[in-house]
């Protein structure tokens, strides 16, 4: 354990690290982005294909 110094709690945690520490924010992003860009956009493409008459 000697090589690992614990971060003093008074030190400010960088913003990016705080974002990455927020598991549920990550979960939100990881589900929303593919749902919008891949699924919703893809479904819109498919439903706009004209039906054969």
């Amino acid at each position, binding site marked *: 354990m000697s*090589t*690992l110094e614990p971060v003093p709690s008074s030190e400010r*945690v960088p913003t990016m690290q705080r974002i990455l520490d927020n598991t549920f924010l*990550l*979960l939100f992003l990881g*589900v929303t982005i593919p749902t919008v*860009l891949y699924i919703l956009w*893809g479904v819109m*493409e*498919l439903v706009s294909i004209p039906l054969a008459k």
Partner: protein
Amino acid sequence: MTAETVIGAVGKQAEFRTCQYTGLKVDVAAQTLIKANAVAAVVFLLIGGLLGLSVALTRWPAVHLLPAEWFYLALTGHGANVLLFWIIFFEIAVLYFASAVLLNCRIAAPKFAWLGFILMIVGALLTNYAVLQGDSSVMFTSYPPMQAAPNFYLGLILFAVGALIGCVIFFATLVIAKEERTYEGSVPLVTFGAITAAIIAVFTIASGAVILIPTWLWSLGLISNIDPLMYKLVWWAMGHSTQQINVSAHVSIWYLTAALLLGAKPLSEKVSRTAFFMYILFLQLASAHHLLAEPGLDSSWKIVNTSYMMYLAVLGSMVHGLTVPGAIEAAQRKNGYTKGVFEWLRKAPWGNPAFSGMFLSLVMFGFIGGISGVVLGTEQLNVLMHNTLYVPGHFHGTVVTGTTLAFMGGTYLVLPLIFQREIIWPKLAKLQPYLFGIGAAGISLFMMGAGTLGVPRRHWDITFSDAPIAFAHSAGAFLMMGLNGISAILAALGGAIYVIVVVGTVLFGKKIVGGHKLTFPLHSGGGAAVSHYGSEGAVKLPGTIILITIFFVSFVLYYFINWKYLSELWLFH
């Protein structure tokens, strides 16, 4: 509100033991769950591996083992058992390990976790039962209008619900660990990798539910029609994303193994975590590369999803491909192997199957699975190889030489640390990753070779013996299929040794007691390195730089060779 009230289970005093090799506090309930999931994984690998061998022997024209109907049955069973059941059971074990064990925390709601496990077992058995009945040979992708027996889909749905419960337990355990302050600051990198895997798993399972439940109802006759293109779109949100769970999980195992065996810390927590973050944001979009040949979707959707965004995720993989060997080199130099450029690599514990499994996985995932994946995922190049054996060749490079080999290597850590049994037949265990690795590399490369020569995937008879119009593949293609068959035998042998060593160790391995010296020892600082946040910092890594340069040169050359092939098709002379 505590995590228990959220998921409706009663909090209970957990029972812990302290690991003598890592100093980690291990919740006994989590340990039992890890064991159960790992054992289930190995059983399904055995079933799926045998089916894989029978498929490869059928595709070897000189052997042509199975009749056509059995071939498609075996192919369906192979895909489901190895890609879903083996890998996902193992991943649930990884999730429980990375949350409860690495964070010194009790596992949330163990009873609920057992419910998930049972659902997964019942689901896997039900799907296998449907496949063996013979009316569900729809192959792994199960594209409508091909229809399987209702139990085929129902089994997959139950399995997915069980796996989702595993993810919920994982997230709840993270919440408990934070509430009860079982760790300081940020979670360790391996846990962060597991979080990445679990997040992708949630999207994967949700997409699976959205498409498999209607398909199941359709097989029951309750829905009249499933649109094939809509099915493909949503199905691949699951089918591709599962592979990204695998990548996140096996990259975590690379870091885990490097930490435990060599005391390696990540070079930079910031860089490695950003790479995982790229996975969370972009990796799942690459699902679109399975639909590059579909006329119903326009190019901007294809290009945004497979190029711009996906390259950011590929960048993530390249970062890991640099930082994992980099962390190993840094640690080995600290361990005293400072001579020359490569002493750190030469003197690495090559005789330890946990290390060799991990390192072979790292190298082959990059060189075989990674490079071919980028080529296949490029819209223009995709048409060269679409639906040929090149595709299974590529993904055996990712899920077999990458994920499966990493998980096999990880098993040699799980056996002494979680099962607390000494590995029986260490000599055989030492050989195993090499044998399996060579065989798996062989099937990947030879299938890719055959695909380049035009041999289709999922095809029972490439001699076209009963076709009204004769067609002959080149002699080279036949040679590739023969070499593929031989490699399949090697891989199956390596897989069999793995199963024998694991089952033998679990049943008959010497119980590990206090003060026992492990046959395959850990680094004395391994436990601390794996369970804490902290970077190695900037160090000189000449060996890693050389390895990475070799990788990039191969990558660029191979990529442009394929553009040259393409230009030849277009006859721009």
